């Protein structure tokens, strides 16, 4: 039986990289949004510029499930290279949309799916002479055909086209024409609509549709970053590029054409973080954006920033490692390497945004935290958040908010005779005062170094002052617990002994999975961790539950490692649920993994077996 579904299905576009399909596919996704139906699109792309297969998946979900679902209901198979695999991946009862200009033998299809052929190449060859036009308009033509078979509002698409080409309005008409070529063909030659339909709804609200890297970059603008040093690396490059765009818009003086920012594309990641540390040492808010391999390269400098207590903000858009790994696939695999970056005893502050809105907020907040704690702050997003458009609440800013520049001793304070010791813990929170270079002619200068020193920044290799300083750094880390964003807890409707901890991009899949698990009769309390070091809430949550699942997108259960190490929790108490094949985690995966586990454990909790 063909699948019947309104506003709840998955369309996947199979394309060739560099064929201009991306904007047509995005047009499709935005059209659904304009009809008031939430979508969650995902790019699945190779580390390549032209020629390799690329996919764009659009989950249409009136219920608002923004995680990846898994499975494909309608495959738009535009890539001959992957055709067979694409056909095989369609759900039973699903639909195949393909270009039937060149007939294919029945063996290339399946009996249990509905096959929809449109002679896209033939239509293009008839309409266009220029090969480039043939290629580009073919994409718009299939969007037009889809609008017919899915019963979409063609007016919404036309309006989007008009908005998209507002500045080049000669392009509007040809695009609308191409749209109707496809739509008219489908209406005349196919049974429209099919079992899958998009119906106008009112489920989007005031939410915005934005890529995480874009929101992150804007967070850096709002957070007051003036210096950005970076080295191109997928999937983080678009953070720095978006920062450049936002700064050109918001930080360039209209009259003088001078800039209230400086962006350097450095020669490597070592140089990037070096510049960030130099600028922060000198009192400018500064950040870098990178991914796992960049974090590896920055290790030595991160130890310096930790030990010499220099603010820094790092945006790590995580991708699948180790080594070059899968550069265009998502993972949450840098937690441990960031938390303990560099040689010697170090601990760093991490933030885990769940979506673009939180990436905006946490990035802005990271600059306050960096100045307050005088240490590197890592904002850990990932490719799934960073490089995909995500529907999220609108970005918000409180105009009364002032930047927290932390403990900076001014010339006036020095004049008034304040006792300045760069590493002196005056407030018993582990955080000392710093002075900025050039503050005062005769007071407050000090030497910043990665070598050991006493409370007044004087070089020493004596054990006492060294240990004293290392203990103070621990006190500072303790202070950080109350400053990083608190975990968000959601309890099940019924009391339960089971809980799940998760973070970052796992959020939407978890939100959906919780209902699926509850439907199996297994209520589950949830705790979304948003920062490291962990708030006391994490200990409490674990203490209150017999079983706690820790859901992550890496192989080695890195968050679980951090929890057991930092909270002193018996690892047996924490059950890892791990997804690490490079695709985004799905609700189906989580529900099955947790559900099966709970079924198996239904009778005797592990703790009782052991005791």
């Amino acid at each position, binding site marked *: 039986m063909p699948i019947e579904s309104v506003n709840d299905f998955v369309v996947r576009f199979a394309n060739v990289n560099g064929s201009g399909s991306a904007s047509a596919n995005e047009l499709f996704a935005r059209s659904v949004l304009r009809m008031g139906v939430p979508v969650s699109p995902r790019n699945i792309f190779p580390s390549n510029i032209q020629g390799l297969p690329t996919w764009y998946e659009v989950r249409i979900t009136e219920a608002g499930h923004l995680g990846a679902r898994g499975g494909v209901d309608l495959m738009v198979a535009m890539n001959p290279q992957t055709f067979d695999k694409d056909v095989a991946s369609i759900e039973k009862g699903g639909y195949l949309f393909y270009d039937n200009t060149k007939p294919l033998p029945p063996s290339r299809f399946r009996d249990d799916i509905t096959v929809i052929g449109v002679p896209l190449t033939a239509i293009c060859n008839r309409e266009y002479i220029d090969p480039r036009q043939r290629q580009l308009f073919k994409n718009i033509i299939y969007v037009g055909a889809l609008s017919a078979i899915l019963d979409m509002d063609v007016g919404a698409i036309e309006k989007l086209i008009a908005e998209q080409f507002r500045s080049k309005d000669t392009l509007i008409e040809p695009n609308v024409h191409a749209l109707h070529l496809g739509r008219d063909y489908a209406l005349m030659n196919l049974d429209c609509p099919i079992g899958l339909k998009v119906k106008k709804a009112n489920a989007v609200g005031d939410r915005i549709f934005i890529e995480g890297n874009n929101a992150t970059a804007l967070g850096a603008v709002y957070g007051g970053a003036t*210096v950005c040093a970076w080295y191109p690396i997928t999937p983080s490059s678009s953070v720095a590029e978006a920062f450049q765009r936002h700064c050109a818009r918001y930080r360039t003086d209209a009259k003088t054409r001078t800039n209230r920012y400086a962006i350097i594309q450095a020669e490597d990641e070592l140089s990037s973080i070096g510049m*960030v540390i*130099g*600028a*922060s*040492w*000198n009192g400018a808010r500064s950040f870098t954006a990178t991914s796992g391999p960049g974090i590896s390269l920055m290790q030595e400098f991160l130890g310096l920033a930790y030990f010499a207590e220099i603010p820094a903000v790092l945006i790590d858009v995580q991708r699948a490692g180790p080594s070059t790994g899968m550069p265009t696939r998502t993972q949450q695999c840098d937690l441990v390497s960031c938390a303990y970056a560099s040689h010697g005893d170090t601990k760093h502050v991490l933030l885990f945004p769940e979506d673009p809105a939180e990436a905006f907020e946490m990035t802005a907040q990271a600059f306050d935290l960096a100045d307050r704690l005088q240490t590197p702050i890592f904002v850990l997003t990932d490719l799934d958040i960073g490089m995909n458009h995500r529907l999220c609440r609108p970005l918000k800013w409180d105009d009364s908010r002032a930047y927290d520049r932390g403990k900076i001793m001014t010339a006036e304070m020095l004049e008034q005779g304040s006792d300045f010791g760069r590493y002196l813990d005056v407030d018993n929170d582990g955080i000392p005062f710093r002075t900025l*270079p*050039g503050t005062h002619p005769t007071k407050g*200068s000090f030497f910043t170094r990665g070598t050991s020193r006493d409370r007044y920044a004087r070089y020493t290799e004596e054990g006492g002052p060294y240990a004293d300083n290392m203990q103070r750094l621990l006190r500072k880390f303790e202070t950080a617990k109350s400053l990083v964003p608190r975990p968000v807890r959601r309890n099940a409707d019924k009391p339960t002994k089971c809980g799940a901890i998760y973070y970052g991009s796992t959020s939407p899949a978890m939100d959906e999975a919780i209902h699926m698990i509850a439907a199996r009769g297994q209520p589950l309390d949830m705790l979304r961790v948003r920062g490291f070091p962990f708030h006391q809430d994490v200990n409490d949550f674990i203490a209150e539950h017999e079983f706690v699942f820790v859901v992550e997108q890496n192989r080695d259960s890195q968050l679980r490692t951090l929890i057991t190490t930092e909270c002193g929790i018996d690892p047996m108490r924490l059950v890892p649920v791990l997804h690490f094949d490079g695709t985004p985690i799905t609700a189906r995966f989580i529900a099955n993994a947790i559900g099966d586990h709970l079924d198996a454990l239904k009778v005797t909790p592990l703790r009782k077996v052991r005791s």
Partner: protein
Amino acid sequence: MTYIVKPKFHHPALPKNSLGYTHRDYEGSVSTLCAGCGHDSISAAIIEACFELAIEPHRVAKLSGIGCSSKTPTYFLGQSHGFNSVHGRMPSVLTGANLANRDLIYLGVSGDGDSASIGLGQFAHAIRRGVNMVYIVENNGVYGLTKGQFSATADRGSKAKRGAINNDTSIDLVAMAMQLGATFVARSFSGDKAQLVPIIKAAIEHKGAAFIDVLSPCVAFNNHLGSTKSFDYVRMHNEAVNRLDFITGREPIKVDYEPGTVEIVEQHDGSKIALRKLNSEYDIHNKLAAMSFLLNHAAEGQIVTGLLYVDSDPDDLHANLATVDTPLNALAEKELCPGSAMLDKFNAGLR
């Protein structure tokens, strides 16, 4: 090792500069380098240059990497903020610091191991970006702190203290700096204060990337027969192309030299360099000729010293980035944060 504080009292008759500061106000703590180290002479030259220019010490930021040379910022300008960063990475830290506050003077101190080996990339890129700085390499051709290994500036065929011969081609940082676009390039010798002090003064007032390679013999590991960085060797093979005097733009300019042997170079900020030319063929404005002169003399075993190249009207990184005149670290919320109304507009464009 301990931190040694110098006594603060001094002779009342010590000369003062126009700010009323004495030499002592430009000193740092007591050097812990070996007695006779060339690096200490360079520190003394930096102190002298800053004293003569009457620079407020706290308006200087001194940055270094790791190594003997990189320790020296502790030994001069005690009222300046200093930053002893990581090995070979001073240039990036200095670049960041410079971006944050364009109003300070940035003095980068490095060594041949720090800049020619581990930090060659950062050296090159900071120079090519035109960071407004004085970049001094205290060049002794040897790793001192780790006890005598060759560095990348050691000449091919030179002999280490324990007898090993260097077979690798040496890196000439001066030639590289010129090729990479440094707008002020000089080489001097730690034992030649008369030449070095005016070079440092001119470099400080130069508004661009100023690079100074200072040969600085290592008394412990590179001052023996067979070394090409020893005091005796450098003195015997030194080919000084010019002697200079430096007149800051802030003072009335009086130049009185015999015509024919003196060239006056005016820098962008009005400061003037009076060059007493010792080699009549040498033209400090012709980069290609300067490089050719340098390489020809290197082939003959001569070490060319003096001010080798200067661009009197350089650009710097801030000019290239069109940053505002106000230092970036002095901008506040109202200049940096676009505010909620802008954000509402931004949101509206994403629906």
